[in-house]
Structures are given as C-alpha cells and as structure tokens.
C-alpha cells in the first residue's frame, strides 16, 4: 500500500460521499478534486455541474478553474450564470453541494469573506461566490476543510453561507444544510436535534485528542466513533493523476 497524507485522505473521504447518479455542484479547490475523483472511481454517473454554467461536464483532466473550456466542451448543456443560479441551484435541482470554508462554527455556519471587521478587515478573503445559495438549496451540503483552531472557531467573523444559524435552530432554507464536514482529521456530522457538529469518524491514525486540539470549541465526539477506511490503491492512483492534471480515460 502506498503512503498517503492527510490531505489525500480528506479528498478521498469526500469523494466517497458522492453517490452514483447524484447531481453535484462543484466549486474550486478540494471540492473539484473530490467530485472528479468520485466520477473516476465509484460514481461514474454522477453529474458534475459547475456554477460557470456547465451541466453534466465530463472533463478529461482536472479543471484548473471552474471556467475551463474542457468543462463547456464536454458538458451536455452550457447555460448562463443567471440561469444556473435561478433555474438549477436556487430551484433545488442540486443533490450535493461541496463547499470550502476559511472559518466554520459548531453549527456549520461558514465564513469565506473576512477575518476581522467587514469594513476594516484584517484579512480580506475572496468572498461568498456561489456558496450562499448552494448552502441554502442543495439537498446535502458537504463541507471540506482542514481542521485547526484557527478555522474551527467559536464564532465566525462573518456569516457568508448559513449552516444551522447562530444557535443551530435558525435555518430557514429549503435544503437540509451541512450534512457532513470532512476534514483532514475525520468526519463531523450535525446532531439530529441540536445540529451541533459532532465528530463521528476519524481517519486512520488520528486520535480523538488530536481532533479536539484542532477544534476551537469544546468538540463533541460520538460515543462510538468509527474509523474511516484508508484510501485504496485505486483511489490514490486516480487522485494523484487528477492532481497532476493527467488525462484519465473513463
């Protein structure tokens, strides 16, 4: 078995949560890697939708941006950005939305906008992009983010995309909200009642203590915590090909 690192484990774990046939809204970064990995391994019929307008994109290699020509050229249909957000995302046609985060709180609220005050930020982050409406409308929302006290914070500086709201009970949006948070340590799931993110699975070799130390709030841990199966040889091979932007035959 090859060696693998925690970032690879995170991407593999995320890919596994995409089911064959799912309609998946793919963003830049780890979500892009995870979705393309899923399509090249266990979920060949998942449908990749990019907010640039490409529906059922079948990229030959990992797209570098969400606006690569390979996406348009291989898509079943390309629509305008307003149509994408109104008729496809907002209308609730997305099964799975993958999101990233610069900060996330215990109720799955996400900040990608600023560190510090919005008017005079310490760090200006890229902003909301397509995430607020994906977070609101996708049937399942999966957050992919490395776990650290700087990222997993008591209170986010700015709510860019809503999870379950300030106390976990304020979600009004039609989709289910963040159903999974997949990190380099393991997997968190919202408590069915309180919606507090709870560590339910750990990646191989990661301890509960490490996960707690990587979290900026008093992390809840499930009574019986599962271990995530290690990446298979096939998953690693495809993941690395994707990352190297090699073409992959279906």
């Amino acid at each position, binding site marked *: 078995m090859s060696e693998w690192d925690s970032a690879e484990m995170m991407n593999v774990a995320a890919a596994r949560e995409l089911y064959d046939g799912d309609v998946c809204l793919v963003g830049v970064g780890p979500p892009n890697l995870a979705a393309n990995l899923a399509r090249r391994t266990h979920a060949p019929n998942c449908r990749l939708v990019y907010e640039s307008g490409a529906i059922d994109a079948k990229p030959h290699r990992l797209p570098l941006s969400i606006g690569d020509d390979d996406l348009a050229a291989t898509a079943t249909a390309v629509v*305008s950005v307003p149509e994408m957000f109104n008729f496809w995302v907002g209308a609730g046609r997305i099964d799975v939305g993958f999101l990233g985060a610069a900060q996330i709180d215990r109720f799955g609220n996400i900040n990608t906008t600023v560190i510090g005050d919005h008017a005079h930020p310490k760090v200006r982050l890229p902003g909301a992009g397509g995430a607020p409406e994906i977070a609101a409308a996708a049937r399942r929302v999966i957050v992919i983010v490395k776990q650290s006290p700087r990222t997993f914070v008591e209170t986010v500086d700015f709510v860019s995309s809503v999870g379950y709201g300030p106390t976990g009970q304020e979600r009004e949006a039609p989709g289910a909200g963040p159903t999974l948070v997949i990190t380099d340590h393991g997997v968190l799931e919202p408590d069915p009642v309180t919606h507090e993110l709870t560590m339910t699975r750990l990646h191989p070799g990661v301890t509960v203590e490490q996960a707690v130390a990587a979290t900026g709030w008093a992390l809840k841990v499930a009574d019986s915590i599962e271990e995530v199966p290690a990446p298979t040889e096939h998953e690693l091979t495809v993941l690395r090909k994707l990352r190297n932007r090699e073409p992959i035959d279906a």
Partner: protein
Amino acid sequence: MPSPVLLHDAIAEHVHDGDTVALEGFTHLIPFAAAHEIARQGRRHLTLVRMTPDLVYDQLIGLGVADKLVFSYGGNPGVGSLHRLRDAVENAWPHQLDVQEHSHAGLANAYSAGAARLPFAVLRGYRGTDLEQQRDIISRVTCPFTGEQLAAVRAVNPDVTVIHAQLADRDGNVMLWGITGVQREAVLAADRAIVTVEEVVDEFPERTGAVILPNWVLSAVCVVPNGAWPSYAAGFSVRDNDFYQRWDAIARDRESFLAWAADNDLKESADV
C-alpha cells in the same frame, strides 16, 4: 455600431472618470486588453463591477483606477488571493477602496434586473447571511400570493459594460460561445457597451450555446485578437494558466507589481 473602431478610440469616447464600469467574462473571455487601455488612458474614480474580479481587477485596483468595487468572488481561481485587491481593502493602497459585495446569485440577478430595466430582482438567497447587512443593495420582499419572504437585490446598471467575444460580422453584430457567463445581461443592463472581438467574419457559424448581440445594442466593436489573454477565447486560444500562477508572485508585493506595470506601459497610471 457597424464599423469596427480602434480600442483606443472606443475607450476614449465611452469610458469616463467616475463611471460605473463592468468588465465581464466568467473565467472565459475576460476583456484584459480593454482593461489595460482604460488604465493607459488614466481613468480615475471608477466603480468597478464584476462577479469575479480575477487578475483583471487586481491589476486595475493596483493601478489606482477604482474607488469602489462591486463583486461576488475575489480570488485568483485555483491559485489563491488577489493581493492587490487585498492590499487596497486591508491597507488602502494605493488608496481606499469601498466594497459592495454579493453572492454570485445576487449579482447575476442584479444584472438581469438591470437588463430588464427593473429596479430589483427577487431570488432565493442571502437568508441568514451577514451579506444582508448591506441593506442598500440587499433587502427582502414578501410574495403577495403566498406571504413567503424572499431576498430582493437592487438592480445594477453600469454606465458602460465591456466584454470580449469571439466574432463580429460585417454589420457589427457580435457572437460569443462557450462559457458565456453573465455577459448578455451585463451588456443589456448598461447605457453603453464596448465589445472587443477576435475576428470579423462574413457569416456566423452554427454554435450551440452562442449568444448573439445585435449591433444596435452596442456602442463600439473593436478587433483585438487575443484581447482576453491571459484568459482565453474558446476556439481561438487557451487559458495561460502559467501566467495566473505567476501573477501570485508579481502581485504579492508592491515593488514587483509596479515593475510589472512599468514593463507593460501601465506605469503612468500607476503613479498614484
């Protein structure tokens, strides 16, 4: 506007100090050449509107062209930060930059409302986010039939929109295809519209997904081959991903940015 004009003349005539200017193109067909011409002509105090500021606005912001930015996602896609945008917001360099920000859905709908000459658009979005604190551009309306509350976003109507397209015909009609983003809406929302194109043809080819803009909604068409570089024009060029990577180092500090500007005849505008 049937006959193609020089880019210099189109910018000189249609883009004025203090204008609200939208340069659109979602990753694809970004009008870089036109942006550089705006900078070369020393425009100041612009309100720049764009869903994805990308390198093109990182450059204009660093060159001191903009007083205000209206946007929805300000990153270097797949690479990281836009350092000039950050330096302007975090440190007011070269001067203060006011920010109005949307989600993609919000800004796309703001353009659409602008194109329909409606004062606002209704969408499912923004609920529960802090973006709603910008009450002058994001509000709520109640459905008169169901009582449901929905987000409302104020229309965006640029003074001038600039886009890059693949083709113009001899009459000055314009055709673009591939990822066409929000360009149609941005053009129709504006008072004036400038289009740079790769090529002029006698007749448009058949292209699924093409957007065609009739000449009578355009103010100027300019032939500027490769006018989207380092972005791309599907069918004509590929994205210069290396430059997008290299930009990170160029833009990271003011010195290297100013050196790049000088190397590209953008120095004058950078004297801020």
